[in-house]
């Protein structure tokens, strides 16, 4: 949008809303990275820090909600402004869920042993890295309003599903090796599933961004990779 609103405060309010979403996105990304790191290194000291930083993310959620209510009642936004406002609502919801999933994953580190098999960890890392990259890419596409990048993220969800499948297999293999492993294996299963769910939320965000830019929803079903039956 090359030209600005005639009423400057309207312009500023929309800008503040976008900034809030971006900030919330980057906080969520940091949280995800930290929690992933902690799982791979089985770093039990950073659990509290990660849990605490989730509060920051939730504060942003309320802030964004308030900003949206104000925009709706004051400005009765139309067309692109309306889509911008509603998308911010949806995106912030998805970001909050991703934050919750990261927090949940951090909690699962506590009972883990320090000698998990290399292959399992590396599969998990691969999945985690991809999800982190997806999140990074989707936030990028939001900042630059890049339709193609958002569509890419949406399509890459297939890969996330595939990597989840692989990671899940190694966890199940580890589980079946030794009955002792049952307890923390279930944690690992949930953690893996959480990463897949985070990936879904990121795909939601990508859909919202595409709707925001084009004004219509992406056609067709989401590409789906192999799925473990739940």
């Amino acid at each position, binding site marked *: 949008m090359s030209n600005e*609103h*005639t009423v400057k405060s309207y312009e500023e309010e929309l800008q503040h809303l976008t900034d809030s979403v971006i900030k919330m996105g980057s906080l969520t990304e940091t949280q995800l990275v930290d929690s992933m790191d902690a799982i791979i290194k089985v770093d039990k000291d950073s659990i509290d820090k990660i849990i605490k930083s989730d509060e920051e993310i939730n504060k942003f959620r309320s802030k964004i909600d308030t900003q949206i209510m104000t925009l709706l009642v004051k400005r009765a936004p139309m*067309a692109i402004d309306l889509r911008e406002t509603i998308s911010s609502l949806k995106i912030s919801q998805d970001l909050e869920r991703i934050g919750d999933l990261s927090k949940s994953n951090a909690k699962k580190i506590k009972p883990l042993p320090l000698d998990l098999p290399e292959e399992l960890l590396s599969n998990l890392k691969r999945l985690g890295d991809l999800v982190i990259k997806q999140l990074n890419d989707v936030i990028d596409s939001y900042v630059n309003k890049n339709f193609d990048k958002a569509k890419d993220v949406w399509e890459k969800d297939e890969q996330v599903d595939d990597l989840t499948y692989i990671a899940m297999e190694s966890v199940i293999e580890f589980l079946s090796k030794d009955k002792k492993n049952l307890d923390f294996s279930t944690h690992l299963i949930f953690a893996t599933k959480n990463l897949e769910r985070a990936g879904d939320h990121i795909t939601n965000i990508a859909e919202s961004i595409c709707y925001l830019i084009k004004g219509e929803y992406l056609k067709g079903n989401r590409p789906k990779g192999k799925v473990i039956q739940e």
Partner: protein
Amino acid sequence: MSDIKIKSKNLNVYYGNKQALFDVNLDLNEKEVTALIGPSGCGKSTFIRCINRMNDVIDICKVTGNIEIDGIEINSKELDVVSLRERVGMVFQKPNPFPKSIYDNISYGPKIHGKGESKNELDEIVENSLRKAALWEEVKDRLNEPGTGLSGGQQQRLCIARAISVNPEVILMDEPCSALDPIATAKIEELIDELKKTYTIVIVTHSMAQAVRVSQKTGFFHLGKLIEVGKTEKIFKNPDNKMTQDYITGRFG
């Protein structure tokens, strides 16, 4: 999909040397409300005044092009303007009831068109028109009082009743609510919702929100040109033209 009631083709309007409308092609559907939006001076009022040939009153105004109502060209010299205005009624921005009684305001139109010969017939026409304009209950006991003694919103509904009294097919409204308070405006919008079941309505409005609320089709004018026209929902959620978007989001000027 409704039928097309009014069709304009290559409509150009000149005030002396100044051109006010440029090649306007616009179809208006039957029994539907079409809103015309655009900044001041963009030609929307000029356009609707072409439909009932009120521009004829202005000496320096010249109209070229076609306007058809039900397939019949209205810009021809043979067409009787008086009978055109019987079919196409108009409500103005500032309520302008005649300085006569409420009854006489409504009965004037039918009388000059030869409808309602007996007093009973006229009484019926007056009551029906006032009922359809949602004004009957408020004025039925004071039909002999002057129309100018009513409140602004009531006066405007009186003008709408007056327009309805001759049984038109089309009602043109030129910013009918701009001089009214929010409650009166709401009553008129409610009325428009009802009226569209019977009449084809074209409304010029400066309020985007009103256009969204009352119309099914919207046309955006700018500097005498029709920039975009389409279903109201589309225009206000996702217009095709950037100028349209800039206008409705307040990025104009």
